[in-house]
């Protein structure tokens, strides 16, 4: 097999792995900032770098590991005054990959959490059997019709524990690495 073909195969398999079964984008960072801090006037971006000792402290305080050395943080300002922090974070669960934004007040309270993007990674195939016709006309005043838009998901309730753990970790990060003023 030629080298080119091999490269082609590699690309294929990687694409298959990262294609999520279900993916929805909700908000950009800018929109999430506005949703959580509607009165703020400026969001100053900074790339927070955490050293080993800071990451250890975050783990001690929250019981959760700060896996990455950098965290995207925005200083939120109103009338030139520092009023809070906005942080973008990722959590990876057994089934889900979620990017969310969180707003924190200067005294360490959660002002709001918005999921920015939601991906379910397990199971790449969409089953679409002909038997779904069974639904048509058999439901309460025929609520099921067929449509081709982006679908919504009904299913077993997926726990949001990963995001809640992320929140705990970010509250510790604020204590360890973000200075007010």
């Amino acid at each position, binding site marked *: 097999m030629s080298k080119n073909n091999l490269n082609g195969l590699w690309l294929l398999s990687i694409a298959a792995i990262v294609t999520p*079964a*279900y993916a*929805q984008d*909700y*908000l950009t960072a800018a929109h999430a900032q506005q*949703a959580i801090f*509607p009165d703020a006037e400026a969001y100053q971006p900074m790339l927070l770098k955490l050293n080993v000792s800071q990451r250890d402290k975050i783990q001690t305080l929250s019981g959760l590991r700060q896996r990455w050395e950098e965290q995207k943080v925005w200083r939120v300002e109103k009338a030139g005054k520092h009023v809070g922090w906005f942080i973008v974070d990722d959590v990876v*669960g*057994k*089934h889900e990959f*979620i990017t*969310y934004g969180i707003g924190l007040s200067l005294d360490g309270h959660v002002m709001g*959490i*918005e*999921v920015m993007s*939601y991906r*379910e990674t*397990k*199971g*790449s*195939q*969409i*089953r*679409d*059997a002909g*038997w*779904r016709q*069974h*639904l*048509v006309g*058999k*439901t*309460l*005043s025929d*609520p*099921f*019709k*067929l*449509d*081709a*838009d*982006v*679908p*919504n*998901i*009904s*299913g*077993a*309730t*997926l*726990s*949001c*524990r990963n*995001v*809640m753990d992320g929140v705990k970790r970010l509250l510790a990060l604020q204590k360890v690495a973000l200075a007010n003023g």
Partner: protein
Amino acid sequence: MANTKRMRPLLGTYVEVGVHVAEMPEHAINAAFEAIGNVQSLMSFHTSDSDLSRLNLAGGKEVTLHPHSIKVLRLARAMTYASGGLFNCTVGGALVRLGILPDHGVRVSLESGVADDIELQGNKARLKRAVHITLDGIAKGYAVDCAVQAMQANGVSAGWVNAGGDLRVFGNFVLPVQRREMDGSFLTLGGLQEASVATSTVRSEHDKTFPAWVFSEYRTPQTGTWSVLARKAWRADALTKVASLANPAERNALIERLGGKLAIPAGALTPCA
């Protein structure tokens, strides 16, 4: 028309609120999430100061509760009675023993009870025997109904709310719906309009990433994925538990008698094991 949607972590899961209107009404989306947060703080088993926990921890004394709590207790008691105990909101004690629900340090002598154990009078409630009520099988759907009401009160004519699979669609549009199967794949159910669908998955072992658990003292729930349609989300939510526990021969008729409809009628497809 464009759809605008938001997602926040609430009710222990991910809640999506969507509007099918030209302009994004920020206040309506916020009102929907607030309504859900309100139901969560009233009916959570996990916090010891919720209305539900105050009732469970009252030691048989009468407690005054929020009208929403009274209403859900009334619906839960009626569904417990009407389903012959297949839906049973009094199994809190058993779920604490199994480690599915937290122990707030009060000894529970009964693992489960009956509808009559709940006494309701005006805005007051009392437990006649030492049972623990859990509203996990109905309150999530009720929260969805409250969120829909909040959106409508804020002028949204069409939209949807999906609380971890308990989904209600309102207004003049059709929302396509897929179901997440046990193996993580997705099955197209069809389009939903002016109705609710709820899904419960019964596993043979407890999975913390999908923490819901169907329990019955007398029957073993049938492993698989159960989806029920109803007008309102609280009913669809409650009836998924009935579907998983019902005698297969009577399942369709029973769900219909209780005001719902199996999304996949028994016989049309064998539930995925």
